[in-house]
């Protein structure tokens, strides 16, 4: 290093102190560095993670007609069972039938007692055991359902600790229009980016 005159050279020490004081002030007033920006997401509504089934199946055989509920036998007790193989809907406007090739009521409903369903032998099935009617055509899915590969299960996987609550077919599938309905999706994720408070969204590509 060059030899320097002791007295002269120390003049700059004042300047250095000045710089440090200025620096201290700048830190105090938070001049440096950016601000932290985090997008304020609230909680989503509880419906977006509900564990309820998409349908509430009827617990007893009844029909909604002109705003009032009627048990099936209220009318059918006095009506003679028909052998006509056509669908006949005029009395059942609230029923929307879109069951594919199965458009014959008596495929599922008992001919003699409309408050029961019917199995492949022609025997009556209780209304609350409606899955035994679905077996008639949907055997593969029924097998999967029994084994737990199809349909919702709530509760326990360990049967020794608690019950694995399965639901019957009609808890998700409307028996007259069984295709699973479209639904509103829960909210999409937010991709955070702290760059100058511009929130960047990844556009779907291709």
């Amino acid at each position, binding site marked *: *290093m060059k030899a320097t005159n002791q007295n002269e050279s120390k003049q*700059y020490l004042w300047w250095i102190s000045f*710089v440090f004081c200025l620096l201290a002030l700048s830190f105090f007033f938070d001049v*440096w560095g*950016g601000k932290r920006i*985090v997008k304020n997401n609230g909680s989503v509504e509880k419906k977006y993670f509900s564990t309820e089934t998409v349908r509430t199946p009827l617990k007893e055989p009844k029909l909604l007609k002109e705003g009032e509920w009627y048990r099936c036998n209220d009318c059918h007790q006095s009506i003679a069972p028909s052998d006509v193989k056509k669908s006949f809907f005029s009395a059942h406007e609230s029923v929307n039938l879109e069951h594919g090739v199965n458009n014959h009521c008596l495929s599922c409903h008992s001919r003699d007692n409309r408050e029961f369903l019917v199995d492949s032998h022609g025997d009556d099935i209780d209304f609350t055991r409606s899955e035994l009617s679905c077996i008639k055509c949907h055997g593969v899915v029924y097998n999967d359902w029994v084994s737990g590969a199809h349909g919702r299960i709530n509760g326990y996987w360990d049967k020794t600790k608690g019950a694995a609550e399965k639901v019957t077919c009609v808890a998700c599938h409307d028996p007259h229009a069984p295709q699973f309905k479209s639904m509103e999706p829960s909210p999409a994720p937010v*991709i*955070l980016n702290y760059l100058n408070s511009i929130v*960047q969204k990844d556009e779907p590509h291709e």
Partner: protein
Amino acid sequence: MFKWLRDYLYFLYRCFVISFQGSGYFYTWMTFLTALSLIGLNAYCKQLVYGLSVTGMTDHVSWGLYIANFTYLVGMAAAAVMLVIPVYIYKNKNLGDVVIFGELFAIASIIMCLLFVTVDLGRPDRFWHLIPFIGKFHWPVSMLSWDVVVLNVYLLLNMHICGYLLYMKYLGRKPAKILYTPFIFLSIAWAVSIHTVTAFLLVGLGGRPFWNSAILGPRFIASAFAAGPAFIVLTLQVIRRLTGYKISDDALFLLRRIIQVAMVINIFLLGNEVFKEFYTESLHGASAKYLFLGLHGHNNLVPWIWSALAMNFTAMILLMHPASRKIKYLNIACVLAIVGIWIEKGMGLIIPGFIPSPLGEIVEYSPTLNEILVCIGIWATGFLLYTILLRISIPILKGNLQISLKYTQRITIKSE
């Protein structure tokens, strides 16, 4: 009895004092660096308070500027070996006096690396978890544990070599070969290992096809041995001008040769990588596509990588051309190499590894101001440290800082 300890402590005290002495330019430089370091410290304190959300990193690009700089500086630290090999293996005379500057540079680089890793941690207060036997050190399975070991040992190696040689010069004694030569040879192999382990950090990730290739290790070494000696070339000229320390032009031209070869290999390996990524048009080439050409409209890094390539290429041509036998052009080539390789290794390697994400999502990365200030602060600290090391070592090497006879006599008289 403890005269050696007393002498050593006094030596350290003198080193401490001398690092505060110098000309006006010296003070200005040190104040400038101190100011930058303090700004970096301030930015880091903000990061401690708010968490890493003050940086531009996200779950998609979870490593950014900090690890980019870390990778680059590990390479720079390894480059000290490019001075050691000519002197100790090939007995080159020209570089004999400047080897130590390379090793001091390695010390400063490693300290910068350790700082960069520390600021990248989400929980730096849990640093002790990394200490073997006290924490839980996942060695030898985790490559990061290997990295911790090799970096710290390399630091200790260089600190020992430089410290021992400088202290012996200060004492006016001849250094005992057994106490430094084995360490020097160890440091040659170790230098290559620190950068290879850092490369393996990235190579060992099967979920990141951009990194999961055998060429990453060689590329790291080649680019390190181009950028490191380039930096040393520039530093030696600064030392020569400011302190009058004797450094011959031949030393600089030997380094030029080294940079030449390393740069050619670097460009060749780059060509290999480009072929591998683009020829088969497989889905694994998505990251390379993003880097060089842009992907689905996202192309933030494209100008960066092409400028880096232009710089590297120009540096290579310039170095091969006889024009670079003139110091002026050599300097230009060195600057181009340093900057070009910094971009290539940092932005051209770390960031594209994360884009697209393993689920195919593209979220780009931009460092925030806070992040940049922390990086500048660490670089300034490294330069500060290096300047202090030079400020201490050059007077010792020139013979101006020596244990004075007057002092030694005084001590011996007292003890009688």
